[in-house]
């Protein structure tokens, strides 16, 4: 018997593909408009989406919230930059080193927090504690990291091999982050449609049952954390090279952690499109909010975000993409036995 779940050419799918092609073409062609300001905003959005996607690779598929993802972003930024400034090592290589370091830390945290049954909370707190620990360490270890002042990368002229693109060739940085986002999303998609993805879904669905099917939950969770944190470090290197300056409180701060999580939760965690959708909405929202609300009304934009989060959790806990998916699922003709309840 050959399983055939959906007809391959449904009108909905066609429309989705067309929309996707238009969006991709739009983003690839954006630099042609020669509007650097627009490019900056979209790049910020891409970075947000990228970081969210790396978080999503772990937290979205395991259902384990990490409140400390900024740590890995920061490890990437600091590692590649310190290697650049001290050893003149190209940030492209520094990116890989940062990624490896990040992955080691991430996997260690995952392993330590997930060993025992009280997983969800322990892990969230462990990740947060780790992130804060690294932030404080960075602030204190002045000879290495320059403490609270942060690190400034001196401009030595344009050099593609050293990941230095400069303001005049902003479109190069743009394409780098665009490719990174595409790559990361592709990886997220591949994981979902692989044995790993299915195993993670099973562990998320019911860990005991998954264990009884030969699945070593801890192994797969730690593995996924490694992938997630490895990729997150790359964003740190990009940030460092693009902005040329960064400091601990911006890189590792609580707001950074929130900004990573929020777009994904809004867009739909566990889906590949979720982080992207969330980043787009949030960036747009940021733009509107910054224009409407007076800048001395500190904290007001975040009050909105907090409220959105609360309302989201009450009415649309899966985020936008999952909400839409559920609606599509119910509207397609399917034979369903009566609800068994939970």
């Amino acid at each position, binding site marked *: 018997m050959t399983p055939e779940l959906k007809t391959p050419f449904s009108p909905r799918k066609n429309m989705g593909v067309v929309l996707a092609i238009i969006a991709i073409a739009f983003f690839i062609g954006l630099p042609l408009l020669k509007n650097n300001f627009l490019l900056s905003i979209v790049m910020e959005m891409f970075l947000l989406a990228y970081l969210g996607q790396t978080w999503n690779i772990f*937290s979205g598929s395991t259902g384990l919230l990490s409140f400390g993802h900024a740590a890995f972003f920061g490890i990437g930024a600091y590692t590649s930059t310190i290697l650049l400034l001290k050893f003149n090592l190209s940030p492209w290589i520094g990116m890989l080193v940062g990624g490896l370091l990040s992955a080691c830390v991430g996997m260690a945290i995952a392993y330590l927090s997930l060993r025992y049954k009280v997983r969800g909370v322990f892990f969230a*707190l462990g990740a*947060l*504690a780790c992130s*804060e620990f690294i932030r404080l360490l960075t602030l204190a270890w002045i000879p290495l990291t320059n403490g609270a002042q942060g690190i400034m990368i001196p401009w030595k002229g344009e050099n593609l091999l050293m990941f230095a693109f400069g303001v005049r060739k902003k479109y190069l940085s743009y394409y780098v982050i665009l490719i990174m986002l595409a790559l990361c999303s592709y990886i997220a998609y591949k994981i979902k449609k692989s044995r790993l993805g299915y195993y993670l879904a099973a562990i998320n669905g019911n860990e005991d049952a998954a264990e009884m099917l030969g699945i070593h939950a801890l192994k797969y969770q730690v593995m996924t954390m490694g992938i997630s944190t490895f990729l997150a470090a790359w964003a740190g290197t990009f940030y460092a090279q693009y902005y040329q300056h960064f400091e601990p409180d911006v890189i590792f701060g*609580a707001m950074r952690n929130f900004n990573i999580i929020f777009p994904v939760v809004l867009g739909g965690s566990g889906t590949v499109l979720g982080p992207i959708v969330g980043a787009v909405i949030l960036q747009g929202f940021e733009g509107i909010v910054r224009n409407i609300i007076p800048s001395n009304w500190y904290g007001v934009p975040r*009050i909105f975000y907090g409220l959105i989060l609360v309302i989201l959790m009450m009415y649309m806990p899966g985020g936008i993409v999952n909400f839409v998916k559920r609606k599509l699922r119910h509207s397609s003709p399917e034979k369903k036995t009566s609800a068994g309840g939970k």
Partner: protein
Amino acid sequence: MGFGGVVIAALINGVLTGGVYSLTAVGLTLIWGVMGISNFAHGSFLMVGMYITYWGTTLLGIDPYIGCLISMAVMFVVGWLVQKYLVERMMDLPHYNQMLLFLGLSIVIENSALFFWPDYKQLQVSYQFNLIPFGNFTSLELVRVIAFAIAVSLTTGVYLFLKFTSLGKSIRATSQNVFAAKVVGINIKKINCVTFAIGIACAAGAGAVITPFFPTYYSVGSLFLLTGYVVTCLGGMGNLAGAMVGGLIIGVAESLGTIILPGGQKQLLTYGIFLLLLVFKPKGLFKFAGYWQSH
């Protein structure tokens, strides 16, 4: 005062601060033990307790320790309402939804405070700088001693309430087995409301008693939240007595840490302890010293 004196002074101050940590953690661990939810907004409620007390004294001239009682009463009611109308519907949802809900709540509360009062406020009272001599080599700040006394009274009060009153017993029963509690006729919704309210009141109380010596500002909550969780984990999630003792341990550790660590980054020590706990003793140091079963 030789080095020994410095250490002893640090030890005692650590215990005094630890009492407040205990109070914070007791609220957290109670909510976790009975309801199975992690209240990430606990710190924010602590902060609100601080502000209520601060404005009570600054605007109305009420002594902060009376303000503490008012604060706790107000936040008890607030906690009840939050539980009844917001949290109750989240009880059956997966953990991460609950965590995010509380995160959102804490962001709303904290940034509202930021909006209204962006600056650091320090409460002033007449006896703020009074000292009590301790032995013949050091003296303690009166306000810290009072804070400790109140915190310990409150945690002991909660402990006794849970041990001896019938409502307390119902709460403990619920923490052990919700299903059985339901079968025996306990009104779980009411228990949840009371528990959450007590937890929040504890947070508010902890905030209130430190106003004379700790600055009041919008993000003070996050400091205590993380420390509170470290204490809760140290004592064992859901273990009330463990939280009480754990708070003192963390207080002392932090205090000793300021002597050893450069730059006074005592938080580094706290988080370091937490990470060590995760590595070596994730279930906490104590084995059910109290009447609680961890979820």
